[in-house]
């Protein structure tokens, strides 16, 4: 290798390229803070570290390549973000320090907003969960499990009954949800936050 090629390499350090108006730019802007998504070097450490990669339509590395290739539709239809279990293995192992878990959350919220994901099980679970938070301020496991299973796994519901009864018998579930005292205060805060979010 001659001196010149070394000089050329040194002269142009890697930079995050995200053309304005691209899907990459859109994802970066929708993720709070510096996600470093543009810095991905396609090494595959993320997919190799992911406990649920085997069941994903695309590994995280593939998703990031697809984002760069502007394959908006395919990315938002992929089950990948929904199969992310938030274990943060990829995030701490990424040599480029891309905030991968946060990017997955961004992709989920984009897919929900545009109703893109083909199988609604995972988005519905999130929606049902936050529905209880917005009404009561706290989560309500019995209602969540019952409503979610009724909608998405009605045939498997009987097999879940022993588990539910076991939880109730052990007093590890309640029949009724708990409501926080100042639920109106929380609702006002969330309403304002959602207003700001849409406005952004």
């Amino acid at each position: 290798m001659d001196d010149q090629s070394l000089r050329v390499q040194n002269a142009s350090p890697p930079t995050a390229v995200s053309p304005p108006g691209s899907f990459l730019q859109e994802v970066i802007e929708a993720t709070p803070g510096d996600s470093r998504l543009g810095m991905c070097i396609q090494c595959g450490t993320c997919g190799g570290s992911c406990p649920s990669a085997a069941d994903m339509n695309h590994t995280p590395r593939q998703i990031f390549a697809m984002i760069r290739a502007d394959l908006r539709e395919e990315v938002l239809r992929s089950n990948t973000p929904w199969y992310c279990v938030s274990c943060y293995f990829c995030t701490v192992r990424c040599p480029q320090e891309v905030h991968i878990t946060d990017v997955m959350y961004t992709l989920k919220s984009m897919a929900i907003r545009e109703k893109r994901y083909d199988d609604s099980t995972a988005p519905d679970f999130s929606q049902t969960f936050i529905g209880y938070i917005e009404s009561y301020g706290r989560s309500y496991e019995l209602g969540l499990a019952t409503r979610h299973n009724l909608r998405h796994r009605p045939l498997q519901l009987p097999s879940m009954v022993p588990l539910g009864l076991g939880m109730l018998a052990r007093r590890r579930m309640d029949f009724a949800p708990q409501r926080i005292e100042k639920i109106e205060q929380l609702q006002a805060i969330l309403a304002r936050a959602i207003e700001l979010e849409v406005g952004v």
Partner: protein
Amino acid sequence: MTTKLLFYPGCSLQRTARPYLDSLVAISPLIGIELEEIQDWNCCGATEYIAIHHLASHALVGRNLALAAQQSNGTHTVMAACSACYLNLAKTDSYMQVNAQLNRQVNDALQAGGLHYQPGTVRIRHLLDIIVNDIGIEEIRKQVVRPLKGLRIAPYYGCMIARPDRDNRWDNVEHPLALDKLMKAIGAEVIDFPLKTHCCGGHMTQINMPTAYELIRRLVYGAAQYHADLMVTLCPMCQLNLDAYQSEMNRHFHTNYHMPILYFTQLMGLAFGLEPEVLGLGKEFVNASQALSRIGIEVPAAEPELEMVEDKPARKKKEKAGLPMPQMLHSEEE
């Protein structure tokens, strides 16, 4: 000396992880912790709120931080025992510190409820961190009256306490040692568990069961390979997935694992000489009484109504045994 803490229990500790709360309350005076619950706290959003509304998920947590800051009398330490709560509280606080726009917007939202939060006002810590790093292993050792000699345990941290660890609380984000040391201090035999921070399946038990079953299987299989008597955890989600779904996992893979999953606070209580009842023992699905009786600790038999409930899946199995299904041959062998 007593350490006063603002306590954020979170939804799980009140219900699915009730034994965690009961055992924590029972050991607190012995290890010099005074818990002051944050008044009217709300859910942290788990891993679901942020999947739908980014900003609102931080505002949701922001309300808790604001309430904690208001209430702080004599302490600025907020303690969460649930890993997801701990991570969500810590994450919002640190994101608000480094991201001026997020800070402004969260406070704009909080204002709608008459609240304000200056990021960095309270310090978010996990219970294990406080016990090991503030109170210290030596203090814990002094309280031990019934060392858990002969009990072989797999220390299981799960993900969210270890990672991403923005505050550098742990020696290692993949193989931390705090829980290992703590369990050794109370006399247990601790295996070097290679899967200690692997995923329990998280919300996959609700979204796609086979994915969750495989993750549960890996952990239980791993602990069984090391001849662990039980796994000890510090996260309600991990305990729920590994305990309540273990029989479903066994059915799915035609296996026959029996790996009890207890909270570290329950084992601490036992070592401190407390009675199993006050520590919420016996409320687990995969019964720990056999494992504990090996070291001379008798857990009271489950109430009759509990036994009836436990009978149900077994009876179903027998009905199925009449059908010529291949897996039945397998389960008969076992």
